[in-house]
């Protein structure tokens, strides 16, 4: 499954990093503690969070995550967008809360 498939299925907004929409998705990780994500996420994960500080992109790049999904209508900071485009790791958005969007992603990936 590619990031673009998840975007389509859940009607996610694509803020940036469009050229990374063909990245392969391999599971997901949910946490708002960046130190935790740095230690415990895996390559290819979709990362669901409410943090929008630009360190989010640095962690996603370091861990080679597939994409970041911001919940509750939260938008990325301007310099985060720029880095997302450079790194070709998409930042996606939804108005859903974490519980709901993660449930849907889980179903989608495991169906």
């Amino acid at each position: 499954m590619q990031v673009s498939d998840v975007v389509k299925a859940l009607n996610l907004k694509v803020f940036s990093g469009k050229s990374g929409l063909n990245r392969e998705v391999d599971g997901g990780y949910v946490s708002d503690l960046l130190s935790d994500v740095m230690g415990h996420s895996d390559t290819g994960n979709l990362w669901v969070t409410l943090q929008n500080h630009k360190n989010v992109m640095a962690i996603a790049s370091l861990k080679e995550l597939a994409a970041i999904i911001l919940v509750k209508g939260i938008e990325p900071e301007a310099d985060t967008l720029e880095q997302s485009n450079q790194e070709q790791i998409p930042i996606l958005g939804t108005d859903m809360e974490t519980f709901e969007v993660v449930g849907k992603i889980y179903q989608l990936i495991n169906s």
Partner: protein
Amino acid sequence: MHIHTVLSPCGDLEMSPRNIVEQAKARNIDIIAITDHNSTLHGPVIRKLAEPLGITVIFGAEVTTREEAHCLCLFDTEAQRQKFQDYINLNLPNIPNDPKNFGYQVVVDENDEILEEIEPLLINALKVGISDIEQTVHMLGGLFIPAHIDRPRFSIISQLGFVPPDLKFDALEIFWKTNPSDILSQHSYLKNPTLIKNSDAHFIEQVGEIFTSYQMAEPTFNELTKALKGEDGRRVVGF
């Protein structure tokens, strides 16, 4: 540079302005900062009590950023303090404190009489992020010091993974047990940062228990600023 009072919900009831000043005097401390969670309100009364004893009081708050990183924001003048308090009031969510769970949030006078109970829960995160807060502090002429950066909770490193390279901090506060060389080797991207240690006192016996020594001409905010920047021969001596 990091003392809570009875105003912080987690601050002990013994942390009254009078007790804090007396304890600082007993420990021969020259300069202290009052840093309640998301509030500067106890600064003025403590400055008033401390001045006759020759102790300098810096105004401040330990702010919780949107990312839930605790940062010390320190100020010199009453005008700066008021402007920063307005900024906090604007950005603190209006969620009422539950004293049973979190503790009381009271403002008292110099005789320990309660003047006011603060309604919104002070340990909440502000609606603004760390960069916005840093810029506001510096615009007002204050000092910005991320607190206990190596703690596993509510620290810039726990919340953001690492210290953002473009964050303009004046110093970094490390946990009292931490060996500075460990921090610097784990975070080698930090280029010779000014490190300090503070008591983060919540109980009266903690006031002045952990402290940092500064080489300064006199205990003032301006001299402290120079010491943190290493200017004009002023410097952090050690902790």
